[in-house]
């Protein structure tokens, strides 16, 4: 098991299941932690120390309690947490959502694919880029 983890916040259990399956099918060894809403994610991040910050966060936009936009705002204004790469992972294709996410500091925006094959491919690409291609803060 690799030390650094990947976090995902999504209220949809099916989506969490499918994403986990995609990570497994792609043989990505990272530990993935799932959260059901923004509040859980923020609570988790507030208790972790700087040493084991996650490699990246997959963040859904529409969630109960604190939604993705709010979480994004909080994270990007926190001086310790703002360096964690955040990938918005949402069903919405609306230009408003895309633009406002980047405006708030999202590192990329990916629309949830509509087939599993496609999802597996997208997860492979995301991991490949953020874990192997891009340099991320350690």
């Amino acid at each position: 098991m690799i030390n650094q983890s990947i976090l995902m916040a999504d209220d949809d259990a099916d989506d969490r299941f499918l994403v986990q399956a995609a990570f497994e099918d792609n043989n990505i060894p990272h530990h993935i932690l799932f959260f059901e809403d923004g509040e859980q994610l923020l609570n988790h991040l507030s208790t972790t120390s700087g040493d084991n910050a996650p490699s990246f966060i997959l963040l859904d936009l529409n969630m109960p309690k604190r939604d993705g936009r709010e979480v994004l705002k909080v994270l990007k204004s926190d001086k310790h947490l703002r360096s964690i790469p955040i990938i918005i992972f949402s069903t919405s294709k609306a230009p408003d959502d895309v633009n406002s996410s980047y405006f708030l500091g999202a590192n990329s925006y990916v629309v949830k694919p509509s087939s599993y094959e496609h999802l597996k491919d997208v997860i492979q690409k995301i991991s490949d880029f953020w874990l192997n291609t891009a340099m991320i803060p350690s």
Partner: protein
Amino acid sequence: MNLTSLQLLNRSLDERQLIWTIRFLFGISILLIIALSYSYHTINQELIHYSERVDHTQRTLIILEKTTSKFYQTIYHGRTYLLLRDEANKRAILENIRELNPLMDELDSLITPPPLNRRVKELDATMDQLYERTHVYWTDSTYSTNRQEQEALLREASVLIEQANRIINDLNKAETKLMHNRMQSRDNYKQQVYRYNWVIMLVALVFLSSSFILLDRELRRNNLYRIELENKVENLNRSNSELEQFAYVASHDLQEPLRKIQSFSDRLLLKHRHQLKDDALIMLDKINESAQRMQLLINDLLAFSRLVNPGYKAQQVDLNEVLEEVKNNLSETIKEQNAVIISAELPSLEAYPVQMTQLFQNLISNSIKYSKPEVSPRIAISYRLVGGAEIPDIKPAHKDLQFHRIEFADNGIGFSPEYAEKIFVIFQRLHGRDEFEGTGIGLAICRRVISNHNGYIIAEGQEGKGARFFIYLPLQPFIS
């Protein structure tokens, strides 16, 4: 929908009739009032004239009476003087004669009609004669008192007096008669003036009250109409915002479960393909296919609903450029199918550019898609400016406008004329999905685009003989 447009038509006809009725009534009333006022004026002038004449005659009669009285006084004093030789009588005679002169002058100026005036002159002459003949008696005290001479003189004087008396009587009679006539005329005109007063008042009253009633009725009707319109606008706004909400729901909530269906069937296939029997695999395939089709439908529905509120502004669009852009977009298909597109010079107009491109692209790709097998598609685009009256089923309010008429004619498979209206309905298709792919949104979008621009789109076709689409866009755009 049809009912309301019929009501609107009736209403507009009603209004036209009403406007002309009001104009007609107004014109008639104005003419009547002017004519009546003119007659009233003339009659009033006559009345004033006759009143003046009556005054004049009255004055003449008074002067005539004064003259008569002075004349008889003179004669009375003359006779008394002859008998008594009293100096007082003599003074009175001279006094009276002095006063008679201006009275006679006045009579002369008052009585102007020649025959009567001649009589006045005669009277004057008679009086002068009488004076000439008799004045020596009271101016010269030494004059003979011979009785015979005196009698002769008195007889001569009597004749003259008699003559003067006759003239005075004649004048009196004539003037009295004149007075009577003139008074009658005056009273006559007075009565007419009185009648005219009433008639004018009545006409004005009828005109004013009918205008008031019409105006009042129209204002109240307009008010009702406005309220009705406001309600409709409110309903329209509500349904528009509901449609927008619906678009959001379609884009997000409907796609969510769909995505799950696809993802899980995908994963099922991926993970357990080897355990599944052939018929299970076919079923899974069907599930996937249906889900994909639903995805297409939702996307189309979304595209269609986004046309309701364009969210951007209309601008000057050169349709030739639009056509070029569309040819570019479709270049692969055009090449593949050997399609030929011939276009006349097209106009520039105020429009939503993206929507115009959508319109042209849908029409042209439709023509290419529904071409005859083995025949390369040929699309002819022609243009001319037409009056609104040429467009079938046009709204009455649009009849007087001018329209750009753009015709798309192809040599494709066409369609039966009975479907000319149906093909514009969303998701309506004339062919099975195995024959031609697609959801049936293209022409619905075309119609939506055209109605966004307050225009008309009409399809004409015959099975096997190609289709023709007519687009009518108003020359003076009124899109906000």
